[in-house]
């Protein structure tokens, strides 16, 4: 049962990817469509940020992650390297959890 579900999920996940790649390729590219497509990543990325910063088991919570992500945000805004953002946000979050 679990194996079947894994294969269906994998097939479905791949179909999304390949359909996107094929449909996107065939579509006539106008300036409007490109302008719109360029807005998808920021909308999705910020949605993921919001979800992974504030969501826990289907509800909204304020916990150590907020401070960690905010720290990472400041470092990212200063255009520091990617790994600094990741390491310091994790570090701040872990420290707050230990001593908070």
């Amino acid at each position: 049962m679990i194996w079947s579900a894994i294969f269906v999920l994998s097939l479905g996940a791949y179909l999304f990817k390949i359909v996107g790649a094929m449909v996107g390729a065939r579509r006539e590219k106008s300036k409007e469509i490109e302008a719109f497509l360029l807005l998808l990543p920021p909308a999705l990325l910020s949605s993921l940020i919001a979800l992974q910063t504030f969501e826990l088991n289907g509800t909204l919570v304020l916990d150590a992650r907020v401070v960690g992500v905010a720290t990472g945000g400041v470092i990212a805004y200063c255009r520091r390297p990617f790994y600094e953002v990741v390491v310091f946000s994790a570090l701040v979050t872990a420290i707050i959890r230990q001593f908070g």
Partner: protein
Amino acid sequence: MGQIIRNSIFLGLAVGIFGLTFGVLAAASGLTVAQALAMSLLTFTGASQFAFVGLLGAGGGVTAALLSGLLLAARNGLYAASIVNVLPNGLFGRALAAQLVIDESTAMSTAQKNLDASKRAFWATGLAVYLFWSLGTLLGALCGDLIGSPEIWGLDAAFPAGFVALLVPHLRNHAASVAALSGATITIIAVPIMPIGVPVLLGVSGAVLGYWRGQKRRADS
């Protein structure tokens, strides 16, 4: 070493640590080592995998786990459409590249200044993440409960913080900022009232609002 390769490896390593946790969680949810590894090699989209094993472990049933996983996987189709110029033109190459279309490869690719760099960033990030994610999963599933929870290491915050770093280069104009802000807002509003996986999909509509604002601003000026 080129900056693109270096960033890809750092990102891959960070994702690999998450792969470790995924392996541990998958094992804790009753998946075998082979099943956990198969998920990372075949499904290869982290949020879907976490949702799938999370719901299995919480006794949510296979159907709910599957649907949530699929809902979370849908955004990869949008990603693939948005970076289609970066993907190879040949059918085989495109079919292969499609498997590597995920949050990280899309974000790194779109953050580059020209098409050539975007292509390199896509492949470097996609392959690095694929490798480390799968290796991490294997190790995590084998080690079982030695790793502990990702929360102890603050890794659950490292992920969204990494996305912030990837978001910053996108905020080039007013429309992009509106798209980002409304995407996050819609997701936050949807979290308490929608099933897992739906809020982040609704957040995509932030792009529509951003586009509308961009057109309006252009018309006004």
